[in-house]
């Protein structure tokens, strides 16, 4: 092609990269900086000198370690059971762990108390135990169940990709089941296990909805940040502690990137051996089955009681059937639900589109500053939601970037938060798409936009869809980001839930929770129906 065409081609690539870069700097870097510099150095000193802050930091690190450990163990055993044994009811077992992923905060913890509290229906009425769920031990249990699904889904996709040929080869060479497990399966799965553990740790660190209800006076950083706001109306303290929370989250994030990267690390070839997995022995099979059954029962009880609760007159006390809470929901609260769906669709779509563009133009190209932009795209995954929300509020409250009070800022915040997930999927897929196709198009004279539109985008349509839908699901259940960005007339369902719980109006709060839940399940069901085996929503290999 002639010089003019070459310049156009290069310029338009750089233009798009530049636009993406500007978006990232404005909407990722700026809010983060705004939060960091809100407290003065002296303020940071005050915040860190409070005994309670120090306790919160220690407790956060402690419970993160504990809950991550058990959640990962549960996740691994659960995934192993599903892939390496032929227990009954597999389809139920595959489905149920999805439920905790779709939960808005708080409400689930209340269900736990009703069932497993001091006078809980199960612990006290049924088993006559005198066990207290409150404090760190109860929190440990609740978080383990709440976050093990992340672990299970990642490890499951990793285990699926281990070529059974290796395991069978070992068996044929004389190794018994346990030895195969120890020397083949476990080492191959280990990077995936570590990856999932880091992801779970990041979630546990930022978990707010569970400790606020269950932990009592045992502070962790997210509850302490909330306490600064709610009990002390102290924005300085809240931003300072958010900055503190960012540090371990960020470290985990860096470890994940450096040690594990985003490459596929499982086995050898993309061409399977066509073999089924070797199965465990009978005894092991039943032990694993009961473990999974135990976990599934707890989850079904917790969500079941919530569902029932939305139709009872007074939560936990008056079980007479009533639709009054649903009447309230369809009355004044319906606009918030509508907003949640609307914002979720746009945030999910925007995030998916951005990830596809970014994966091709940033990840797929070489240019000065590529590493920085590549890092910035994934950075939001390391930022706790509350930090991002406050950052957006502080950064965009005056001209020239006046966005507060609009729906746009909510959508933008949720979108930025969801980009890393889609980006990871797209880049993973992109590395599998050979360069030849792209080069062929370029040789035939296509400009970069044409290449993107006709070649790349269609090839990435699966990660686009899974990114869209995951983005939607995560957005409608998010509270930490939206709580600071909602404005009169532009509230979300999750903000309504918080407000209702504030004034002990549990019935309507639970009804909203179930409504969100049902919408999420419907979306997943439709996705599976229409896109079936192709789009596996949850096989994310990392953040």
């Amino acid at each position, binding site marked *: 092609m002639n010089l003019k065409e070459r310049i156009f081609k290069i310029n338009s690539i750089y233009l798009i990269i530049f636009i993406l870069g500007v978006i990232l700097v404005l909407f990722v870097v700026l809010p983060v900086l705004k939060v960091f510099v809100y407290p003065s150095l002296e303020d940071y000193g005050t915040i860190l000198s*409070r005994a*309670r802050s120090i*306790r919160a930091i220690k407790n956060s690190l402690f419970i993160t370690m504990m809950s991550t450990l058990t959640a990962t163990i549960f996740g691994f055993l659960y995934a192993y059971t599903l892939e390496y044994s032929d227990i009954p009811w597999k389809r139920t077992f595959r489905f149920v762990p999805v439920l905790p992923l779709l939960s808005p905060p708080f409400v689930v913890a*209340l269900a736990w*108390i*009703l069932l497993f*509290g*001091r*006078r809980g229906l199960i612990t006290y009425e049924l088993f006559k135990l005198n066990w*207290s769920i*409150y*404090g760190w031990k109860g929190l440990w249990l609740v978080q383990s169940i709440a976050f093990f699904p992340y672990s299970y889904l990642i490890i499951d996709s990793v285990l699926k990709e281990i070529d059974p040929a290796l395991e069978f080869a070992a068996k044929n060479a004389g190794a018994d089941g346990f030895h195969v497990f120890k020397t083949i399966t476990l080492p191959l799965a280990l990077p995936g296990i570590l990856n999932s553990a880091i992801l779970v740790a990041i979630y546990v660190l930022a978990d707010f909805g569970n400790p*606020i*209800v269950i932990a*009592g*006076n045992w*502070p962790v950083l997210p*509850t302490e940040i*909330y*306490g600064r*706001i*709610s*009990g002390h*109306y*102290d924005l300085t303290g809240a931003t300072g502690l958010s900055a503190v929370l960012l540090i371990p989250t960020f470290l985990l994030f860096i470890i994940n990137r450096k040690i594990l990267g985003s490459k596929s690390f499982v086995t050898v070839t993309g061409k399977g051996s066509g073999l089924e997995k070797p199965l465990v022995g009978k005894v092991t099979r039943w032990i694993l089955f009961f473990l999974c059954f135990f976990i599934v029962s707890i989850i079904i009880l917790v969500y079941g009681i919530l569902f029932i609760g939305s139709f009872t007159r*007074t*939560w*936990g*006390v*008056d079980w007479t059937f009533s639709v009054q809470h649903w009447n309230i929901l369809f009355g*004044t609260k319906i606009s918030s639900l509508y907003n949640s769906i*609307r914002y979720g669709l*746009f945030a999910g779509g*925007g995030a998916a*589109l951005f990830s596809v563009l970014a994966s091709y133009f940033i990840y797929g190209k070489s240019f000065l500053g590529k590493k920085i932009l590549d890092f910035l795209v994934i950075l939001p995954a390391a930022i706790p939601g509350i930090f991002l929300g406050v950052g957006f*509020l502080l950064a965009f*409250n*005056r001209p020239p970037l*006046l966005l*507060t009070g*609009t*729906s*746009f800022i909510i959508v933008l915040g949720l979108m930025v938060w969801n980009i890393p997930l889609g980006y990871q999927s797209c880049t993973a897929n992109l590395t599998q798409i050979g360069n030849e196709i792209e080069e062929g198009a370029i040789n035939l004279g296509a400009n970069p936009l044409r290449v993107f*539109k*006709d070649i790349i*985008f*269609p090839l990435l*349509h699966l990660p686009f869809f899974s990114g869209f839908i995951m983005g939607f699901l995560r957005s409608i259940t998010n509270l930490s980001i939206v*709580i*600071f960005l*909602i*404005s*009169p007339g532009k509230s979300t369902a999750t903000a*309504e839930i*918080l*407000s209702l719980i*504030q*004034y*002990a*109006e549990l019935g309507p709060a639970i009804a909203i929770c179930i409504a969100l839940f049902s919408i999420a399940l419907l979306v997943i069901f439709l996705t599976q129906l229409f896109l079936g085996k192709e789009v596996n929503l949850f096989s994310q290999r990392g953040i």
Partner: protein
Amino acid sequence: MKKAFFLILLVSLIIFLFSFSVQAAEKVLVYAALDSPTLEAIISEFKSATGIEVEWVSGGAGEMAVRIKAEKDRPQADVFIGGSTDVHGDLAKEGLLARISPENAKFIPAQYIDPQGQYFGWYLGLLGLVLNTEMLQRELPGTLPPKTWDDLLAPEWKGHIVSSGPATSGGAYIFIATQIFRFAELANFFGFEGQAALAEGERAAWNWFRKFDQNVDLYMAKATEPITLTAQGEYVVGMSWAHDILVSVEQGLPVELIVPPYTGFEIGSVSAIKGGPNPEAAVKFVDFVISGRSQEINATVGAKRYPTRPGVVSPPNSPDIKGVVLVKYDRAWAIANRERLLGVWEEVITK
């Protein structure tokens, strides 16, 4: 297929860019820290009376205050309703509230209104106890319901009390200050005056809290949570706001409200935010909120709170305000010593 894709995306993008709603009617934007039945009733009457549209965001008082602080360069809302004078006073101190003179202010006793007209007290909330009468029978047969704060120190209550923590709950802090002021008043009887009385009061209060802590099983994050748990039967008695406790009583739950003598209270306020988008509508809304009609709604709908304007009905089913003994609450001292007292609480409390 691909073309359809792009078309859909493009159309969605356009719709999304137009998701900024444009409105022309007169309206007022409110940050509210009230339960929804009360709030919606007041708003609905305001709308019928004035024709002004109201849009609001609801949440805790602390959250609303923090938003107002974060938005100081360009306030998003016109009015902040609900939350105690402590919260509004803090915002006033930072210069975030407008100075206004609504008509109805003259009917409210001066002690409830900011002398500079930045916030107006329109309801009183009392601290009280919620007692689950069924659980009392089951778990502590023969024990009488507590009548005073000191009754809660009796050994039979060990493990049966739920309260809230001051780090996250404004009400819990008011509770600490209440005990200090209660003992300070007692100290007056023994000849202590002024600062000395407060020092004695504080010493005695922390002793009281050490014993109280022995009996408390759990401190929750928010002031209203003890009510939920007590009503559910997790605990026999909880400490919380009387108006919120009454909501549970009226729902027919097996609980009753006890207001011990020398109890603490909050003065619920409303204020106009300085620099809000609709200043005139803001004044009208504040004026309505502090009116007799609005205070009557607050006393009879949702979580029922005592009015500050004389002559307005008191919440039914609630103790007669004349019979309630309130502590002499020194607001200024409570605010000034807050940080320090919270630090002491951290050290004294073990649970």
